[in-house]
């Protein structure tokens, strides 16, 4: 009986150790949740500021954003771009547990379905034209460089009036004419449309989502 009690004592000690560890993670997760809420709040204000003014603010205070925690930092790079960093105590993923790890290898392969194990199912938002705070993040500093492409996009000519049926009216320039004017390498906006002109992107929507 004493061997059994010793076995349970060992299991109890392992459980106690795990409990202490998970509770300490909980304390970190609480502060991360607070940081994430504040980062989302700031992202909304920053995005509307940039869209409204057409330029990025000098600082967060200039965009009327106050009470910024030390875990969030903002650095203006150019008049059109800035870097936004959020520091988290712990990583937050879609789950790196037994199910997500083993099922995606053994089970998915056994069923013939494609699947591979990522390093914790992490999705971090990439750099883009708007600030987006992802639902998952890595431990430590998570930075995004936001470039306001929209203010630099070539505007649609005033005389371009699409007909209700979707095709352009007779007075509007044909798409090939518009393409040739925008795809002129000496043109002002060539930098922004060169991928479209070279055929890397296929539509105007692709261009907008870049």
């Amino acid at each position, binding site marked *: *009986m004493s061997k*059994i*009690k010793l076995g*349970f004592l060992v*299991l*109890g000690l392992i*459980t106690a150790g*795990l*409990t202490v560890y*998970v509770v300490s*993670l*909980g304390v*970190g*997760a609480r502060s991360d949740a607070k940081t994430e809420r504040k980062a989302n709040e700031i992202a909304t204000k920053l995005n509307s500021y940039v869209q409204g003014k057409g330029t990025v603010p000098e600082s967060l205070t200039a965009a009327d954003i106050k009470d910024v925690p030390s875990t969030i930092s903002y650095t203006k790079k150019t008049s059109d771009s800035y870097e936004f960093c959020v520091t988290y105590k*712990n*990583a*937050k*993923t879609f*789950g*790196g*547990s*037994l199910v997500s*790890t*083993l099922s995606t*290898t*053994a089970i998915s*392969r056994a069923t013939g379905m494609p699947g*591979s*194990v*990522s*390093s*914790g199912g992490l999705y971090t938002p990439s750099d883009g034209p708007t600030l987006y705070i992802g639902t998952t993040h890595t*431990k430590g500093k998570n930075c995004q460089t936001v470039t306001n492409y929209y203010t630099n996009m070539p505007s649609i000519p005033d005389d371009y009036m699409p007909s209700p049926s979707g095709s352009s009216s007779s007075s509007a320039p044909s798409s090939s004419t518009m393409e040739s004017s925008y795809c002129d390498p000496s043109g002002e906006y060539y930098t922004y449309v060169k991928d479209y002109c070279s055929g890397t992107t296929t539509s105007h929507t692709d261009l907008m989502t870049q």
Partner: protein
Amino acid sequence: MDNESNKSQAPVPVVQVLSVSGLEYAMQTLMLAGWSISLVSLATSLINGSREFTTLTYPLSVLLVTLPLFAWLFIRLRRQEAANPAQKLEASRRRFAQLTQLVSFVVSVVTLISLVYYLMQIISNEQTGSVWKHVASYLVILVVAKAIFLYYWFENHSMKWGKK
């Protein structure tokens, strides 16, 4: 009259409901399943680098509840068996012990197949991710399932051989 005599000779089920201790064996089996699954889940999460509060809290909660209950039921039933050795041969006890043995055996075999399959995939370089993390995850499942299986295996065989 013939009908009456046929009825009296018909086989009668020995166990229709669980006995008093049979119910305790059923509860002990459920608690064993609970803590072993949660322990494996916690260990594999930590091995695979998940240091998230949300991922770890549920299996830890299951472990915190099921492990003490299992320990209490296990010690209690062992004391009863020591006082009354005939209880070891009770149908309910044997049924749950055999069920546990069978499930742990199946889990061990499936895990072993998965481990061998994974190692073969490494040879062909078709696997991505950390090899040791995967191997360690499989080994954790194997150790827990094998420990449960071997406990009941030796217990059954010591009973068969007349040892205590």
